[in-house]
């Protein structure tokens, strides 16, 4: 039996407990411990992905209790891919966390690192677990960490965190209730076991209620329009270091749970024939894509613009899932990876800007492209990728989503994807115009310098990563995502 599946969340959890101890000895040790734990998790995730592609799924029986009685951790192509996205993006976010937290939240430096690691442990646990209730426990570990991290931000942050907590806990509670229905209907919590026992009782009203509850729960957690109300304030008022950690991966893991439950635990046909959940998700997502983009155009604050853009971008993932065909799912999964890199890069830039100028208004950006050339070069790459200009990665996920929409023959979805690219262009070109075409203010002309190397490095790495993901997209799709997607729909 291989230990790799459990070795992904374990180093993060261990580091989360070691960080406060290290902080008592010397503050300088804290980032080292945090990065070591996160790097170990990322290394095991990459190792796991390679092994899964070569040898097939890896199973780990926690405490040596065989499933379905014991809790099982599973690395299959889907969870291995997600684990790599979560841990690698998480690692880069932690690299950025140190300089940004030291500047913005110096008195929460140690605890901030510890809670950030708990958040990553929760998210990676959600990805690898094969047990429905264990998923809830990891979900709440991640969510509670996120509420706490958001709350250490600006003056308004605790209010934003409280609203996030109420809606997030409502989502968590709906999920437990849904899992309760499934448990009493099937007598099991192991996903593979539940999947087998569910097939003959799809018509049961308890099962349908469970499906609806879990769908609403995860729609809340992934901020699927119109359940996105917690997101804009939370992302805007969170410390920059936290926004750079939460925004890229948090909502995607909730989307992963939807994929796991509705294409794995249930057969894909269930959520179409017995209750039209997948079509509902796809229509809401199509609405959310447009709504988020339009709202982003209206914002004056760079962070709030990026937050509304997240509402729109997570809806792409929902749309790809809701289309219920392999091409759409490929687009959704590719977009999970692409958008994780893009949004991390963009929020890092917003944080660096705040570090140097203390302001994140879009109108204050005039001339900044020349003062912080490298930072905003990274921003430009990410922005072009968000709009969908090849060879940046964002183009390719939209391409597969578009192919998926054409395959189901839904003109509205095609229109939504194309229109949102146009809207993305509108709000990013407004920023780019300010950055490069307008002259800067007079008095701070000389004072604003390039971001410090510790913040610039992860930002540039992500920008390069966006291009690499774009260039390698055919490899990722044919080697990993296409087998995942066709595997999930073949059953």
């Amino acid at each position, binding site marked *: 039996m291989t230990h790799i599946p459990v070795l992904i969340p374990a180093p993060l959890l261990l580091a989360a407990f070691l960080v406060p101890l290290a902080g008592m000895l010397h503050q300088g040790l804290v980032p080292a411990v945090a990065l070591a734990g996160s790097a170990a998790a990322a290394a095991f995730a990459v190792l796991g992905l390679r092994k899964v592609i070569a040898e097939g799924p890896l199973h780990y029986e926690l405490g040596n209790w065989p499933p379905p009685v014991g809790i099982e951790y599973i690395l299959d192509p889907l969870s291995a891919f997600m684990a790599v996205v979560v841990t690698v993006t998480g690692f880069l976010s932690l690299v950025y966390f140190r300089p940004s937290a030291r500047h913005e939240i110096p008195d929460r430096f140690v605890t901030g690192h510890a809670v950030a690691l708990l958040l990553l442990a929760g998210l990676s646990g959600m990805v690898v677990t094969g047990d429905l209730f264990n998923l809830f426990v990891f979900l709440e570990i991640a969510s*509670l960490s996120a509420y706490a991290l958001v709350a250490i931000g600006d003056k308004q942050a605790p209010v934003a965190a409280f609203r996030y907590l109420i809606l997030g806990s*409502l989502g968590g509670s709906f999920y437990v209730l849904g899992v309760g229905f499934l448990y009493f209907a099937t007598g099991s919590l192991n996903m593979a076991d539940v999947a087998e026992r569910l097939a003959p009782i799809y018509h049961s009203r308890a099962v349908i209620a469970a499906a609806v509850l879990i769908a609403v729960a995860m729609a809340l957690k992934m901020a699927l329009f119109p359940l996105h109300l917690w997101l804009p304030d939370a992302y805007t008022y969170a410390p920059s270091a936290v926004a750079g950690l939460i925004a890229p991966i948090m909502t995607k893991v909730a989307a992963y749970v939807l994929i796991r439950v509705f294409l794995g635990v249930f057969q894909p046909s269930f959520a179409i024939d017995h209750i039209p959940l997948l079509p509902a998700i796809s229509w809401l997502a199509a609405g959310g894509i447009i709504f988020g983009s339009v709202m982003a155009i209206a914002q004056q*604050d760079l962070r709030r613009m990026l937050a509304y853009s997240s509402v729109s971008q997570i809806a792409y993932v929902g749309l790809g899932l809701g289309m219920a065909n392999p091409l759409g799912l490929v687009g959704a999964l590719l977009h999970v990876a692409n958008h994780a890199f893009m949004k991390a890069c963009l929020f890092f830039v917003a944080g660096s800007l705040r570090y140097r100028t203390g302001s994140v208004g879009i109108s204050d950006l005039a001339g900044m492209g020349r003062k912080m050339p490298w930072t905003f070069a990274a921003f430009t790459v990410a922005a072009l990728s968000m709009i969908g200009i090849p060879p940046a990665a964002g183009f390719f996920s939209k391409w597969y989503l578009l192919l998926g929409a054409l395959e189901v023959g839904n003109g509205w979805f095609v229109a939504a994807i194309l229109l949102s690219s146009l809207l993305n262009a509108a709000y990013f070109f407004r920023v780019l115009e300010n950055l490069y075409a307008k002259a800067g203010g007079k008095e701070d002309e000389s004072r604003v310098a390039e971001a410090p190397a510790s913040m610039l490095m992860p930002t540039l790495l992500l920008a390069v990563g966006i291009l690499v993901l774009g260039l390698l997209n055919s490899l990722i799709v044919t080697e990993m995502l296409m087998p995942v997607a066709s595997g999930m729909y073949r059953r």
Partner: protein
Amino acid sequence: MNLAGFSANFTYVVTTLLLVIGLYGMIGKRNLIKKLIGLSVFQTAIFLFYIHGAVQPGGTVPVWDARFATAAQYINPLPHVLILTAIVVSVATTGVALALTVAIYRRYGTLDETALLQRMKRDS
């Protein structure tokens, strides 16, 4: 619904009532503490639902006893264990939420959502 049906489904009726009351508290009330009370009521209703599912009429405690040979004679212990975990989660959530309300009150001097949103708007 006749009386027999009602008593058979009594727990479900109470659970549903509590869920609705909790949801109303969370969404309908303007005071943050009342929202939190709503959340707690909502979560407690779910605990009740799980515990009810564990009941085995005439069943005994889930410790092996030679006089009770079949599984159907024991109460199902798993929902109890799950709910112990869920209670821990709920306590942690309440703790974080109370800490947040303290921070909010210190900064804004109110816990009324309408007043808070006004004062937040003034700040930004």
